[in-house]
């Protein structure tokens, strides 16, 4: 759970307080355009309204019908007029989000947190499972660079169709087998063991981390991970962190 040694991607650049203005703090009610099956995942597509898509790797808090707490989701795609989120229905909240019907409305807050640093020369996207969620939008912003993706089954791997120029492996082969030895700028999102392995292979990798989170804007102190030797809030310092 704790990952010593990780640092904020934007260390030194960000002011000590987050400029979370009252305007940005206002959650918006967005209508559901459609929910499309993508392999075993669901792509939940919302009308964008006045909400900005933000930087790839930033996240939004989506209010799940019937839940007390919203769910943090990174943006998967930003088609014109829409915001789309790739969701794995693994619990009551994510199942309720995947069961939304066209025309339903949900509250959305964001974009939140610090996304990927896009100033990279030789990007390689690395994704595992539902961790590929932010990669389609990231790929688009970086001009469709090479990507390597790992999934636990062929059915899950159908989601690889969302990421251009992707090589895909299925367990027991691990995605790290496709990470080259020459220096590249790795931008990764996936389960913790994958991020740990990527970080050993690729110094300076940008890793999109995940943690149980209640608020997404620094209020609850739930989402702490070990950052630079101390428990710090992932929503404020990350969720994209850099391996030293």
């Amino acid at each position, binding site marked *: *759970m*704790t990952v010593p040694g990780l640092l904020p991607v934007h260390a030194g650049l960000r002011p*000590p*307080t*987050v400029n*979370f*203005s*009252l305007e940005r*703090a*206002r*959650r918006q009610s967005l209508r559901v355009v459609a929910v499309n099956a993508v392999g075993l995942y669901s792509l939940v597509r919302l009308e964008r309204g006045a909400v900005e898509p933000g930087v790839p790797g930033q996240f939004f*808090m989506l*209010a799940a019908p019937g*839940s*007390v*707490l*919203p769910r943090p989701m990174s943006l998967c795609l930003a088609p014109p007029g829409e915001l789309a989120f790739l969701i794995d229905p693994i619990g009551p*909240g994510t199942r309720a989000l995947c069961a939304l019907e066209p025309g339903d409305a949900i*509250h959305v*807050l964001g974009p939140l947190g610090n996304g990927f640093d896009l100033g990279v020369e030789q990007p390689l996207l690395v994704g595992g499972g539902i961790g590929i969620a932010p990669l389609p939008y990231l790929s688009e912003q970086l001009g469709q660079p090479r990507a390597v993706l790992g999934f636990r089954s062929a059915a899950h791997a159908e989601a690889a169709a969302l990421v251009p120029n992707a090589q895909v492996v299925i367990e027991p082969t691990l995605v790290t087998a496709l990470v080259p030895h020459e220096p590249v700028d790795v931008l990764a999102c996936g389960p913790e063991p994958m991020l740990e392995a990527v970080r050993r292979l690729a110094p300076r990798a940008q890793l999109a981390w995940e*943690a*149980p*989170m*209640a*608020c997404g*804007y*620094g*209020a*609850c*102190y*739930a*989402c*702490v*991970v070990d950052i630079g030797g*101390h*428990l710090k809030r992932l929503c*404020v310092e990350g969720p994209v962190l850099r391996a030293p």
Partner: protein
Amino acid sequence: MSIPLLNASGCLDALTAPDVARSLDAFVTKTITPLPREGNPPPRIAETAHGMLNSIGLQGPGIEAFLSDHLPVLAALGIPIWVSVGGFSAGDFASVCERLDEHEEVATIELNLSCPNVEEAPETSAQIVAAARAATTKTIYAKLSPASWDIAEGARAVAAAGAEGLSLVNTIRGLALDPRTLRPRLPRAVGGYSGPALKPIALACVHACSQAVDLPIVGMGGVATGADALDLVAVGADSVALGTIFFSDPGAPVRIRAELEAGAAALGFAQPEDAKGVASEIPDLQEFLTA
């Protein structure tokens, strides 16, 4: 002023969301302890059907870094600053209160006598209040746990020891299991239960304490709408604090203030404070029987 709205301690960070803090009538800090605290290991939250458990464990900078790094920023917010104080002995509470006493930016001290996620002080709440009372001339509110058979007795005890107000209520200890393993979802097993499920418990506590003592009460527990806030006023709260609702709606203060005004007006009250204590009025028995 209408019914003042505050945040429940630990449910909003004015440093990361200053504009949200400014939309309140007063800001209450996360609990400050004598020394810096790293807090409990993650995971720290577990959602349940009608609420959430938290086990943050009083993560915080400690009093010295709070005074040097945080308080000047909070003072610039332009609203009254309440400092929540915690510790592991009456001496801890007294030492933090003594350091706060010299800072005029601090409007009120709220003693966190009831954190469900750390070891308790050996002294009683009344002894801690008395120690804090001797260490500061600031207004002291005592924040009590709802997990008490007779919270009115606790309210009378802290009032006698010098508390000038009550914050009711803190979270109540709860536990949730992982359905796949039947093991606790939080590392310390238990956490503080908050959210909609806490509201009836908070109403009962405020109701009992408002009859027992003549102290102002900040009511809190499961407030998500103006109607929830009006309920707390009706059982005797003078002001209302918002907690778990901040995690889903940072715009809650503005929304709930508007809903509270409209809800009170719809029931025929010129202003929300006119509904104060109406739930405790002795009903006309004849009217009650024929209704």
